[in-house]
């Protein structure tokens, strides 16, 4: 894959990828754990690694991926317009301001949630596969229609959870539903980890969480107040180098591309770090 450092937009014919895009759905069961933040940041990180990326906001009625991506004011058409044939797929794809290989298909804001079916999502993803490397789908909370829409086309599912009992319980429920559907075992992103609290035994550790869920971790994202400010300014953290959460997201992106990225040092407590490395390295089930 040729390096393409500059971010200058230049018109170019769509490249054909040999294998087609990998469709990745980001889900959690519980709301507010960081699905949208994760989708935005992994999308940006992948695009910065020269991947051709489409983000789909499947959270009908509660769209906000566009806001976090800073693209709200460019929306003309949305997902439901595509499904109902009011526009072509291309017309609903909003190109990012700085990253010319990053697109967003926004959710509809006020329409009926049953306007989109799992079959529609599969069709849409298949239409885009040849021209992209990654299609990331931001899933709504819950286990109803919106969830089924979002996971229907997925080749891979990422479960986002927080180190809290209720969030982990919902993640477990989601994993059970995915198993029942015969989906590939999902990977886990543990978000909003506070090392201080874990050390004091006040928060579930990554080990506690993987012990319950028995699936492999693909990322641990620390609690980082920059996440909030960057989301508010429409510039996901993964744009900037230096922040801890941003680095965590970029590492996840590289792992999704097949790279073997060692785990970020969460702190200098070597016992803790060793345990985490073990969780990533070996089978955890």
């Amino acid at each position, binding site marked *: 894959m040729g390096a393409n450092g500059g971010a200058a937009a230049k018109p170019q014919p769509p490249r054909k990828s040999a294998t087609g895009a990998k469709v990745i759905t980001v889900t959690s069961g519980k709301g507010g754990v960081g699905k949208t933040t994760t989708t935005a940041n992994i999308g940006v990180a992948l695009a910065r690694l020269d991947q051709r990326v489409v983000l789909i906001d499947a959270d009908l009625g509660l769209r906000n991926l566009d806001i976090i991506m800073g693209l709200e004011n460019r929306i003309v058409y949305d997902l439901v317009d595509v499904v109902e044939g009011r526009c072509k797929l291309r017309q609903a794809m909003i190109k990012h301001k700085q990253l010319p290989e990053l697109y967003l298909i926004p959710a509809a804001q006020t329409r009926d949630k049953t306007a989109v079916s799992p079959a529609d999502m599969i069709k849409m993803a298949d239409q885009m596969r040849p021209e992209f490397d990654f299609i990331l789908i931001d899933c709504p909370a819950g*286990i*109803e229609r919106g969830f*089924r829409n979002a996971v229907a086309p997925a080749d891979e599912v990422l479960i986002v959870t927080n180190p809290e009992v209720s969030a982990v*319980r*919902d993640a*477990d*429920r989601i*994993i*059970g*539903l995915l*198993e*029942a*559907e015969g989906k590939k075992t999902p990977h886990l992103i543990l978000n909003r980890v506070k090392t201080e609290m874990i050390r004091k035994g006040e928060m579930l550790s990554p080990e506690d969480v993987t012990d*319950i869920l*028995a699936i492999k971790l693909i990322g641990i994202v620390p609690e980082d107040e920059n996440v909030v400010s960057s989301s508010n300014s429409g510039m996901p953290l993964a744009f900037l180098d230096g922040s801890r959460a941003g680095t965590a997201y970029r590492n996840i992106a590289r792992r999704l591309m097949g790279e073997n990225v060692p785990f970020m040092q969460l702190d200098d407590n070597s016992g803790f770090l060793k345990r985490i490395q073990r969780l990533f390295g070996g089978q955890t089930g």
Partner: protein
Amino acid sequence: MPDSTVAIKGVNDGLLITLDPVEEWGLVTAELATHIDEKGAFFNGAEVTLEVGTRPVRKDELTSVKALLERRGMTLFAVSSDSDTTLESAIALDLRVRANSSPPSGAAYEPDALLSFNSEEDGLAGVMIRRTMRSGRSVRSQGHVVIYGDVNAGAEILAAGDVIVWGKLRGNVYAGADGDETAVVCALDMQPTQLRIAGYIAISPPEKRRKPKPEVALIRNDRIVVEDWDG
């Protein structure tokens, strides 16, 4: 089911209603209503397990059967099916589900059919599940339940007989659900949210870091006790 599309049969903890898997849905549900109405208030208060075989039942369809039963004073409790669509609908309505793959429908409650090997020992038929049961999943059996895997918090097992968990038990478990006080619950690591045997209920003491060991729960002197399992 001889030339009827609906079969209603009493099972220990409620009613099992089997609906023909292929006949037109509208006809089947109409016949169901007729069947129940013919019996007057006979089924009032019953908990119903609905068995629909391979038929894919959409959520709205299931919702209307649920309403049909509720109007007649019955509750739809569980759905048993081979169809993923049906199971998803049931899950979406927060009903218990039972995937039907092992015993073919119709023979589901014929233990003899399952025990027809040339066995020296008598025994009760049961359900064997070879995977971890995650939150929100449930199993119900007229016989025993064996889980080769964990039972996570939020999962639920209900058995007329015994429950054996070859793994960690964290969820809710109910053995001897028809009142059998000799039923037992065994697990390699016993930490259920709630454990019931026949008419007794126990909860696990708050978790302290402890070494998992195989244990068995049973009723002794009118209460549930948990003992080391040492063969």
